[in-house]
């Protein structure tokens, strides 16, 4: 397949909800070590609300879908993941535009806009032990795959692998942003919960694209 349809994108969002709910305890456990132990429950509450909002008012196009996702997360997550994932989806939707189909290049450009929005919102940089450490490698891998002529499924697969690797690479890092930064050196040796949920985001995108 050459383009992600609105149906595929909606399946991505509900797949993300499923994965977040499935990994809720793990995310909270990771966050209890270096944060305030609410990432799993916050994200699960937010994504349940997202799926409910999308069901209640089926969006007409990609821009509307991601706006609903972003604004719902902003108002229901509570922690820093609210404005961060909220910004990711609002920028993603703004870049995607009022269309119901996104090819690999267009979806890659939209993901880039989302990731740059997160970077600006959190004022974080790669290596700060945040969700960006999974998100930026994933988008880089997506763009590299598209530039090499890969199709949508191959680009999504490369991005998911890069996000997983980025997540694992957060383990030795010392946190420089967010609640974990209060721990300083003691944050090293623990996987970042935000990078973990972001890896799930790209895994579910790959699965949605592959299943379509």
């Amino acid at each position, binding site marked *: 397949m050459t383009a992600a349809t609105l149906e595929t994108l909606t399946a991505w969002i509900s797949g993300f909800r499923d994965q977040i709910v499935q990994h809720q305890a793990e995310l909270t456990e990771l966050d209890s070590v270096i944060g305030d132990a609410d990432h799993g429950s916050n994200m699960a509450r937010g994504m349940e609300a997202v799926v409910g909002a999308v069901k209640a008012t089926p969006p007409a196009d990609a821009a509307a879908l991601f706006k609903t996702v972003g604004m719902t997360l*902003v108002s*229901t*997550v*509570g922690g*820093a993941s*609210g*404005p961060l994932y*909220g910004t990711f989806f609002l920028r993603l939707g703004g870049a995607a535009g009022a269309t119901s189909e996104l090819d690999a290049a267009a979806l890659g450009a939209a993901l880039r806009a989302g990731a740059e929005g997160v970077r600006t919102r959190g004022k974080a940089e790669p290596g700060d032990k945040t969700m960006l450490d999974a998100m930026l490698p994933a988008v880089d891998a997506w763009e590299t795959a598209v530039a090499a002529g890969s199709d949508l499924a191959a680009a999504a697969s490369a991005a998911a692998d890069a996000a997983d690797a980025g997540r694992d690479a957060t383990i030795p890092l010392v946190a420089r942003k967010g609640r974990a930064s209060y721990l300083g050196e003691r944050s090293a040796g623990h996987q970042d919960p935000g990078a973990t949920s972001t890896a799930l985001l790209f895994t579910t995108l790959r699965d949605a694209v592959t299943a379509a």
Partner: protein
Amino acid sequence: MIGFVVVSHSRPLAEAAVALATQMVAEGPPPIEIAAGSADGGFGTDAAAIAAAIDRLDASEDVVVLMDLGSAVLSAEMALEFVERPDRVHLSPAPFVEGLVAAVVLAATGADWASIRTELGGAYAQKAHHLEAGSDESAPTPPAPERAPADDEASFEAVVINPSGLHARPAATFVKTAARFDALVEIENVDAGSGPVSAASLLALIALGIGRGARVRVRARGREAQPAIDALRALVEDGFGEA
């Protein structure tokens, strides 16, 4: 009047901070909105709720947003994308409680945004200065009083007699009284050799550490220097009504 939005992870924390601040301006607090906690009563912040709180203050020319930590700051920054008039909104860099109390007291005197911005910008340094006084010469100094063309000048010295000295509430009364006059007022703690600082800054006044029995020197310059000094002398000698 300047309006305030108080953003916290916790609604009880925000409500208590607002109560602490408005206790000092019981006669006429500025408009204050709270955007705090999650919808289900837990901890959390919500950019859309912050934006709505800002927009509810539609009569205020300037809106100052005080935030606690982490997502409160991110959500407030995001809220600026949703509000109707972002150019009138100012995110405070000050510590949450100190910033709120000082800015609310100043706003109640009719101070403009420029004065409040100065107070908020120095709010952290005031506390650091107080804690480091005597142990670190490099500690930041309180803002120097502004110098005006010397027309009228007046001054007095007096001993502070009220039990807890120039703590927050009497200090707020002092700031508010000084602000009523067309004069630049400064105060120093003669015994401790601290100051002089501008009487326009509540936090600078508190940082002088004026306790019971301390001798203060108050100077005023400007058209209403003498009436300002008369009023302030009466306040101090009367023990701010507390003695």
